[in-house]
């Protein structure tokens, strides 16, 4: 079974559509959304509707910090511009959509994998996995062999073998990576709707459970239109620029 892993969509309809179409072409039969469906972008209604639709059909959708801030109006320490997006998004979504976001679970465990938005040691603290130090913390605490998380917008793969040393690897898009059963893995697919590594193409990943193969993807999409909508909605200019530059 091929699982599509999508995270940090941030109200970007064009990017999500492109990734979902690609995943379907690749034979994905199961969808896991790792959180942050809203914030930054101009299409929260379409994006949340789509996630609700997938969830109703059996997909797993987890809660990210932007979803929490938007759905429950809880303060999760955002900068001023990000908070502006949260406030605007709350005016766009229906009560049902806000309730959906507020009630999402923080993590899910299936087989030998843990799925979580930010990290496996304290999902609700939303601390970032910036590098091998934080990755080691995750890999030492989590019992599952593979952790999939979002929150960081750059695709990255960490692994730890017998020596307990954590190595990091920048995945090559489109290359299936065999996840050796003799080590622990922490995979960050990268952001669908707000890529920040200098490449505007959307990020997501597929995991072939049977063959134990993880593939990271970069999907080009109409980022000019997505950026235009951000400006038209009166959201902070820099979130439009980021879509064009990918940074």
């Amino acid at each position, binding site marked *: 079974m091929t699982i599509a892993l999508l995270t940090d969509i941030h109200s970007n309809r064009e990017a999500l559509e492109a990734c979902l179409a690609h995943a379907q072409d690749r034979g994905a039969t199961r969808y896991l959304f790792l959180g942050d469906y809203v914030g930054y972008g101009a299409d929260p209604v379409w994006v949340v509707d789509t996630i609700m639709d997938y969830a109703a059909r059996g997909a797993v959708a987890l809660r990210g910090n932007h979803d929490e801030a938007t759905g429950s109006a809880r303060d999760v320490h955002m900068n001023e511009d990000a908070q502006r997006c949260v406030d605007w998004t709350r005016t766009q979504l229906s009560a049902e959509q806000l309730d959906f976001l507020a009630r999402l679970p923080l993590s899910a465990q299936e087989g030998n994998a843990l799925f979580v938005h930010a990290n496996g040691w304290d999902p609700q603290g939303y601390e970032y996995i910036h590098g091998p130090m934080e990755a080691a913390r995750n890999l*030492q605490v989590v019992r599952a062999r593979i952790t999939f998380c979002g929150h960081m917008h750059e695709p990255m793969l960490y692994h730890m*073998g*017998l020596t307990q*040393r954590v*190595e990091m690897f920048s995945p090559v898009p489109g290359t299936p990576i*065999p996840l*050796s059963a003799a080590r*622990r893995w922490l995979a960050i697919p990268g952001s669908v709707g707000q890529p920040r590594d200098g490449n505007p193409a959307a990020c997501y990943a597929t995991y072939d459970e049977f063959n134990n193969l993880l593939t990271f993807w970069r999907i080009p999409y109409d980022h000019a239109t997505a950026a235009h909508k951000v400006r038209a909605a009166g959201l902070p200019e820099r979130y439009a620029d980021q879509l064009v530059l990918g940074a």
Partner: protein
Amino acid sequence: MSTIPAAPVSGPGDGAAPAPATSLHNVSLVPGQVIDGFRLLERLHRGGMAVLWKVTRADLAEPAIMKIPLLGDDPASIVGFEVEQMILPLLRGPHVPRFIAAGGFDAQPYIVMEMLQGESLRARLDGGPLAPEELVRIGMRAAEALHDVHQQQVIHHDVKPSNIMFRADGTAVLIDFGLARHDRLPDLLAEQFRLPMGTGPYISPEQVLHNRTDPRSDLYALGVILYYLATGARPFGAPTSVRGLRRRLYEQAAPPRTRVHDFPPWLQEVILHCLEVDPERRYATAAQLAFDLAHPQGVALTARAASQLPSAWERLRRLTRRMLTRPEVRTMAQQLNRAPIVMAAVDLTQESEALADALRAAVRHVLNAAPQARLACVSVLRTNRLVLETPLDAVGNHRHVLRLVQLQHWARPLALPPGRATFHVLEAPDPAQAILDYASANRVDHVVVGSRGASSLRRYLGSVSTQVVAEAACTVTVVKVPREERASSRSDGTSL
């Protein structure tokens, strides 16, 4: 096995960490036992890191090899096994053992692969120095195998005689990918271990410095093998300490001719070219090494061909240059792409002058984009199928020599340094087939060939370029000249 064992870097962390399943100190296996459907027939070998069993399974026509790691306290052997389990299934073709199955770490870990008959190259070491012709044959076969694996994005990193085997038709097969690195996958051995990963006599200078990203490391190891087979001695002995390994960073290998006095200078040039300390000064690709071994007359002799060690001054100069240059970081694909073998199929008949000029311009573009490319300039002398021809033309000139001179004249404006271009006149009844055969035998990456368009000759002979495009296994650029110019040329030549 003489692989330098990597020292365990540290003990397991704080004890709270759940370690992967590794409590698999091998239970004793006996003939007749069945593992995942494979019946163990006979134990063939027990090395330092693994045991090899001959096995069979109902659906297999021939017995296969099952490699079972010895999972002791040495993490290096476990990681090495993980690496081979990751990389071997991805490799294809005749130069690697065919992967059949693998078993995970949750039960009995193993890899099952094709069983190769015969002995490894190691058996040839006992017979003393080999004749140069034999050495060249082995070198070409091994270089072919390395190039194939490199094109599949994998660096072997443990090329040594015991890891090279041969099929019945002579094809070299590389075995044991436990130290390998795939350019697009996580390197499980990167910086995990304190000691350099490799085998003492064959390890490249950059591997000693913990750089595992350069495919030319394998060319260094092959150079050591050829040196050993040529002289009966290894250029830097068989060091077992890091200090001993580091000698090769500063010292030059004694030229083979100081050990075997009548050793061919061109072959010494080739071997020492492989043994350059700085990978940038080695052959750019294994294909280029194979090309030189196949074309001794095209090897440009440098100071490396001399029979003495370079002077102290020269050595100091090289060392300084090495220390001052920062190596460029490239992916394997980039490294291979900047060093293709380009073939120019040149038609030198009079009516094709404009086309020959256009062809040269196209070749110049290709070479500009690939700074380490090798150019093979080829012209075909068309021979009749049935009539035995005299090699002399009407006025007594040797046609073959004449064509070779014309070919060199054609390439002169490209101003290529010695060693970058070679010249070949092929005599064949079918020019297109001759070009295709040459391209295939020499692992040509890019053929540049002219098309004479709608000439009467083309109608008579068929289009050479069309056949080359249709049948070549590599990229082909077809060069044309604008129609006006073509109209002015006559078309009654008989050769390409």
